[in-house]
């Protein structure tokens, strides 16, 4: 576990290096006379640590002749466009092409400058060459696992690499993969972005929930969450039902619910949930994998095998030929259940410009709070009609999608008052403590 959680096989360090190589090339170009007349740099540096002091920095302050001080900033590595590119690339060649397409900034005329204008993509690809090979490890029960790539699920698509998923499907009869956050963000992007780069779409989808989390969605205070309450469960179940409805009826997929079972769950609560889901024609499986490992998930495994044999009728939520706004609106109204979308003047302008420049046929990647179906993190019930508020729009030409921001998304998190690092240590035998 430490081996996976620490430096692993160095993939993330390689991504950090490739990202920062591009930054170094940009600033060197400016230092050496700025032939391309780079006027505004949007490409940021990155580091794989939560360090809020780096969100905004001043660079090139040495005072040397030619040094042009400018404002820069750091993102965490997983938020780098290179991570998104890495996870969508089909092979080394596609990786190189996508890296070359990264827009690093603009010249004085407002024209895009790309990584390929700086001839950066070849060297960047060299740094990523080994990282692009998927990593094979195993579970505690010796089941093979490929662990590869991990972009943010808000400003990026939140799924492991296309290369790893494709490899997994060639190596086994059942390939299990995940998408970050809830189904509104993770599964939507898996299906509408990643699946456009996969040879097939899911044969079955498992929606994970816990009784406690459903009661929390119903408004139950966290300190009482272990107490039985059909009332709060009834209020909170809408969240699960909405995701099931989306996966079945928008995307046409086969769905099963996996309940991660806790000892505090009561029979009454489980029966209620089972009945509600059966009414919707959805199967449910109680999973005790946390306590019993694979034995605790045999029922789910059997049901998934059966479900995979059922035909599915996959459809994307939107068509690539839809306009940018149509795409945003389809996700907002169909997947989130919003009644509409509001745009700031700034985002209206950018969308218009992107359509004019011919970027309108890219998929959209919406950055929204993960806690609610709406863009208000505190509105868990979503009883009242809500709108989605688009604040900004960013083109990611390398990744090949348009990021749509609905609020402030930190691409460089900070540490809490007592960081976990205070508890991490190593003893005289080299045994690590404090990593979970």
């Amino acid at each position: 576990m430490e081996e996976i959680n620490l430096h692993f096989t160095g993939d993330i360090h390689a991504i950090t290096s490739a990202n920062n190589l591009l930054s170094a090339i940009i600033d060197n170009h400016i230092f050496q006379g700025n032939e391309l007349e780079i006027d505004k740099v949007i490409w940021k540096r990155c580091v794989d640590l939560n360090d809020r002091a780096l969100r905004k920095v001043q660079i090139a302050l040495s005072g040397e002749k030619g040094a042009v001080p400018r404002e820069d900033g750091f993102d965490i590595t997983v938020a780098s466009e290179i991570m998104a590119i890495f996870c969508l690339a089909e092979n080394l060649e596609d990786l190189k092409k996508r890296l070359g397409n990264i827009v690093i900034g603009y010249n004085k005329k407002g024209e895009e400058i790309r990584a390929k204008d700086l001839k950066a993509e070849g060297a960047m690809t060299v740094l990523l060459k080994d990282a692009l090979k998927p990593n094979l490890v195993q579970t505690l029960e010796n089941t093979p696992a490929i662990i590869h790539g991990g972009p943010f699920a808000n400003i990026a698509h939140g799924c492991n690499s296309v290369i790893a998923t494709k490899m997994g499907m060639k190596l086994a009869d059942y390939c299990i993969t995940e998408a970050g956050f809830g189904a509104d963000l993770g599964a939507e992007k898996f299906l509408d972005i990643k699946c456009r780069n996969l040879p097939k779409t899911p044969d079955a989808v498992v929606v994970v929930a816990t009784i406690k989390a459903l009661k929390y969605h119903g408004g139950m205070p966290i300190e009482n969450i272990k107490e039985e309450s059909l009332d709060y469960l009834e209020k909170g179940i809408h969240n699960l039902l909405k995701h099931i409805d989306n996966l079945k009826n928008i995307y046409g997929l086969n769905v099963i619910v996996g309940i991660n079972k806790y000892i505090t769950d009561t029979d009454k609560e489980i029966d209620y949930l089972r009945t509600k889901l059966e009414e919707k024609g959805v199967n449910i499986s109680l999973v005790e994998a946390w306590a019993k490992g694979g034995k605790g998930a045999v029922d789910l495994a059997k049901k998934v095998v059966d479900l995979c044999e059922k035909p599915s009728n996959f459809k994307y939520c939107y068509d690539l030929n839809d306009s940018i706004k149509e795409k945003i609106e389809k996700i907002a109204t169909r997947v989130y259940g919003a009644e509409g979308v509001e745009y700031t003047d700034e985002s209206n302008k950018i969308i218009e410009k992107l359509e004019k420049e011919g970027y309108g046929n890219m998929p959209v990647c919406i950055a929204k709070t993960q806690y609610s179906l709406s863009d208000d993190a505190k509105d868990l019930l979503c009883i009242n009609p809500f709108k989605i508020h688009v604040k900004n729009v960013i083109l990611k030409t390398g990744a090949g999608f348009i990021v749509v921001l609905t609020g402030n998304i930190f691409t460089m998190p900070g540490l809490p008052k007592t960081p976990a690092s205070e508890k991490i240590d190593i003893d005289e035998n080299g045994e690590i403590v404090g990593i979970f």
Partner: protein
Amino acid sequence: MEDIEIARNAKLKNINEIAEKLGIDEEYIEQYGKYKAKISNKLYEKKKNDKDGKLILVTSINPTPLGEGKTTISIGLADGLSQIGKKSILALREPSLRTSIWN
């Protein structure tokens, strides 16, 4: 037992054994220590025309501070499929330093 003790007590197999179980030829495996390996992308080229296995997506309700256990279920499902004699594999995201250590 703490999670990390469970992890340390589990009997991991040499990664070559795991690769062998998947039918991967030695020439496509680059070992990183005993328990990790990189798989050459040339293997995909070789297997390009083979039939794809079933694809199962694990997702969840909107996350809460209580944690839903998506990865626990994914791993459980892959192990559960092994238990009933099916050939399964996981394809997951790699954790970064920031999530495992510094939060």
